[in-house]
């Protein structure tokens, strides 16, 4: 929430509207709108399922999501998680096998795309190559039979917002990647639709432009106040843009919450490892004496976690801690010993990659629910005095930065 607010403040054109916005933690409230009549447009997925022929599991499995009016919801997950399929079902470009999709109070589950009052920005923009930029943006209005001068006015308005006025008569092929992206946005905003759908709209831009456009899109959405569903595989995009972020994996919704909540209270091992960069360290360890051995140190388990593990009948638990939950302490002090194998210096921060002491006999981060998380540990270190490669450092694990997950289900076990 802090991050998103900073973004809004950084955008001068939206500075005046920020005060009108309800706190992001309560996205259900009405949003500031500019020149739009106030309509309540909620979107809900009710146990929506999509199965492809010949697939052994549904592409989207009983997705249940309620999106508030004016909310910016991000669907995020690795490729093949069903995020694009979900968006396309909402757009009407994909059949729904089971469940109901509503826009506002309308059941749109089996309506064709044209009757849903939505606008979509495609990953490859899908601009009409035989039309000028102005015609591209006005196409939907033309199809709808809007009067010519009204189309002209709205296209001009959108072009002004997106800084495209100089390019209105060009064909898409004469535009740069960033300009094409803005035309695709423009085509969506002239519609003044009930819902914006965006399918990885930034993935074809270079890194610098992507960061810039990211803030512009987020600011624009806040200014227009139109309910938006945004699909990305990039967790940084998800965290910086979304009011709420829905994390999907294998067609199943893992967690849907505000970015800060996802980061602080991940529902399971997958969310914990997916959100945050570098990822959270996850180590599966054997239970001994109401605690686990980690890097030559004993990490005690909170009583609630112990009860939960006992109820499961398990003797192992997954311990998770973010790189910033580790502090470097003087050698000899009690803590986790780590052999540094690589140091990443990013300027403002630095990360030390390594292996915990005694890792070969005690804990292991392979197998079970943490498979694929990587065997090493990452620690944030002081960027002014980073350790050297090969050095042994001692780390202290902050108790409030430690998470425990079930070794069998991967669910987080609340510690208090």
């Amino acid at each position, binding site marked *: 929430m802090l991050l998103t607010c900073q973004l809004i403040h950084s955008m001068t054109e939206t500075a005046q509207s920020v005060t009108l916005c309800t706190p992001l933690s309560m996205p259900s409230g009405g949003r500031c709108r500019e020149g739009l009549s106030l309509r309540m447009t909620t979107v809900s997925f009710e146990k929506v399922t999509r199965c492809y022929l010949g697939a052994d599991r549904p592409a989207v499995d009983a997705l249940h999501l309620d999106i508030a009016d004016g909310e910016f919801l991000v669907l995020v997950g690795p490729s093949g998680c069903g995020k694009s399929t979900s968006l396309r079902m909402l*757009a*009407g*470009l994909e059949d729904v096998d089971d469940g109901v999709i509503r826009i506002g109070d309308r059941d749109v589950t089996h309506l*064709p*795309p*044209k009757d849903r009052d*939505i*606008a*979509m920005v*495609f*990953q*490859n*923009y*899908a*601009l*009409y*190559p*035989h039309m000028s930029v102005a015609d591209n943006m006005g*196409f*939907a209005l033309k*199809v*709808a039979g809007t009067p010519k001068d009204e189309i002209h006015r709205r296209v001009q308005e959108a072009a002004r917002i997106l800084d495209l006025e100089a390019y209105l008569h060009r*064909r*898409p*092929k*004469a*535009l740069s*990647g960033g300009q*094409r992206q803005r035309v695709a946005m423009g*085509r969506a905003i002239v*519609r003044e639709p009930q819902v914006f*759908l965006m399918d990885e709209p930034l993935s*074809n831009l270079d890194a610098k432009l992507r960061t810039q456009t990211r803030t512009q899109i987020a600011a624009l959405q806040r200014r227009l106040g139109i309910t938006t569903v945004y699909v990305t595989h990039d967790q940084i995009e998800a965290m910086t843009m979304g009011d709420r972020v829905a994390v999907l994996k294998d067609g199943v919704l893992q967690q849907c919450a505000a970015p800060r909540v996802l980061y602080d209270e991940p529902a399971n091992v997958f969310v914990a490892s997916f959100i945050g960069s570098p990822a959270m360290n996850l180590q599966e360890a054997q239970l001994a004496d109401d605690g686990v051995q980690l890097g030559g140190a004993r990490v005690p388990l909170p009583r609630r976690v112990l009860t939960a593990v006992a109820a499961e009948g398990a003797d192992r638990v997954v311990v998770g801690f973010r790189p910033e939950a580790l502090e470097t302490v003087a050698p000899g002090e009690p803590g986790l010993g780590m052999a540094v194998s690589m140091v990443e210096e990013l300027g403002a921060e630095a990360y030390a990659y390594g292996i915990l002491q005694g890792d070969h006999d005690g804990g292991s981060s392979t197998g079970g629910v943490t498979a694929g998380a990587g065997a090493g540990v990452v620690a944030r270190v002081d960027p002014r005095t980073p350790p050297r490669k090969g050095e042994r450092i001692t780390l202290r694990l902050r108790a409030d930065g430690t998470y425990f997950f079930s070794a069998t289900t991967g669910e987080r076990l609340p510690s208090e």
Partner: protein
Amino acid sequence: MNTLSPKLRKGLLYAGVAAVVAYCLAPFYWMLVSSLRRTADIFSNSPFPTRLSLENYLAVLDPSESFTRALLNSVVVAGITTAVALALATFTAYAMARLEFRFKRLVLTLIIATSMFPVVSIVVPLLKMFVDFGWINSYQAMIVPSMSFTLPLAVWNLTAFFRQMPQELEHAAMVDGCTRGQAFRRIIVPLAAPGMFTTAIITFIAAWNEFLIALSMTNKPEMQTAPVAISKFSGASQFETPFGSQMAAGVLVTIPLVIMVLVFQRRIVAGLTAGAAK
């Protein structure tokens, strides 16, 4: 390896191109030259006509040969074949490229398989059938079989073309308020125009040059197409083959094709879809 100077390499390249062009154009050139010779010089081997003469052209266009009528017949048959085949092929190809249905591969294979029968093998059954229909000496007797041979090629050609088009374009149009049909008409057809023109030209040439069926299904001179009419040119006596007028007729038959290709070539602009995606 790379010892040739750039100049020499370029020279060789052009020499190669010239050789290929000469090889392709030589028969047409000889036809043109022969058509301009006097009847007496027809077996001359000189690369240029020693005495230009238009007598062959006058003979061909002589009303008694009814060659102009044959040209008109050809235009009708090839034109209708092209128009109908293109319309049918466009819809079929779009379905093949975009719709998911069972046995799609099988259908596509069957379509291409139908064009693989040799015309000779079906011309007798066709003749028998069309006699029963009373279709002998009718345009449809030439158009229907021609279409059955040109359609498969047209369908395959257009299917490949439609497949290249980003599907997101139609999806964008549908989200923008179009039905599937409108998206096809307003977005896909304009973009597919180059492919459709190419297909039209191929179809037209095939129908224009069709000989065997046109020969079998007609026996009245006024229903003959141009290729059939040429084959039936009679000389001054039955022992004289009218090479000169045949050559002149060949030139006349080729000219419409050349004009058509030149006219449509402008529309066959490659890369019309550039800028759609990314």
